[in-house]
């Protein structure tokens, strides 16, 4: 199958992953866009026969981290718990997202990035621990400890209703 076709087939899942990382729909689609551009630019680095989805998840995750760093440098609030306090466009975006994903999205946005990405890959994208650890390029033990902390935080935030 052609690289582009395979990539298009992955877009629904990539959009879901982006939403679980970046929270606001507009930010999430920006992240998708950046991910696609990176993937096309470095497509020579992908080895046919290996899993394109894992490769794409990794590119997206790295793009997200880069965006987060850049936002931090500019002194912006990056999809954080205090998003509601920010003003202007970013605030509007966050509020819009909040309406759509409700408590779950807000709870995810409150997690530290390293817990959020672990939760997103395993619980939202349904990756096995081993696959998620490979995407994040961390040892299994690191993955499970981040995952358990992230889940416990989500359970606390969402309460027994979850």
């Amino acid at each position, binding site marked *: 199958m052609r690289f582009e076709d395979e990539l298009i087939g992955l877009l629904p899942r990539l*959009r*879901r992953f982006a939403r679980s990382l970046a929270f606001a729909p507009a930010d999430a689609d920006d992240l*998708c866009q950046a991910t696609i551009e990176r993937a096309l630019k470095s497509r020579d680095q992908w080895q046919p026969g290996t899993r394109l989805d894992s490769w794409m998840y990794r590119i997206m995750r790295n793009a997200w981290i880069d965006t987060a760093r850049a936002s931090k440098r500019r002194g912006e609030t990056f999809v954080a718990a205090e998003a509601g306090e920010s003003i202007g466009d970013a605030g509007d975006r966050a509020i819009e997202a909040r309406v759509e994903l409700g408590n779950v999205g807000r709870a995810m946005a409150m997690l530290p990035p390293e817990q959020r990405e672990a939760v997103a890959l395993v*619980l939202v994208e349904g990756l096995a621990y081993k696959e998620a650890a490979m995407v994040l390029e961390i040892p299994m033990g690191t993955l*499970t400890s981040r995952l*358990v902390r992230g889940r416990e935080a989500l359970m606390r935030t969402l309460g027994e209703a*979850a």
Partner: protein
Amino acid sequence: MSGEIDPEMLMAYADGELDPLSAKRVERAIAADPHAAATVARHRALRATLAQAFDPVAAEPVPKPLLAAVEAPKVVDLASVRAARRRARGWRGWPVGGAIAASLTLGLFLGGQLGGGAPVTSRGGTLIASGSLDRALNTQLASTQDSAATTRVRVTFRDRSGAICRTFATPALGGIACRDGDAWILRETRARAGTAATEYRQAGSEDAAIMADAEAAMSGDPFDAAAEARARATGWRSR
């Protein structure tokens, strides 16, 4: 929280990540510890909650700009690809084989398009764009065209003679047209597979071949959005 079974282990059990032996051990433990059993249940409930919240995103139709980002990479990216290709094989001029294929394709194509509005006509033995194709080449900008447009213009560039050329794709036909006077001369055409009028067409191997030939014929960089708009404003004049 659950005696000898640590939180990671309970979580892994809830996720079905444990080997059978470890799973048995956890099962024995949770049978004796209601708190551990509740934790496992909460882990599973949380997974369901997250799926319920985020799965609708994957069910939404993918926005067109994202599809377009895969299908028509930015012109700036093309420039680097082209540079690499040119280094690899050097200038080889307009493809003669492609031109022969073009006339065969067009023979078939024109045969099926008798009557008004054919996108291709012949003038003095030269194939030129007409009708909707001529219109699209004259007016559409790759940077602003509707992603659902039937005829899409992809890349605009100058060839070695200074003429402005544009690659295009209709549902049935793709190719390269270069401006000569008041007409778009078809330098290369290829039949495109998958001619059904689906809402969104995916580029096939013909498109890649056309793009490669455009890259080989190009002088300088492909036009960016501003250059493309300027070229349109000045009637696609050659240099």
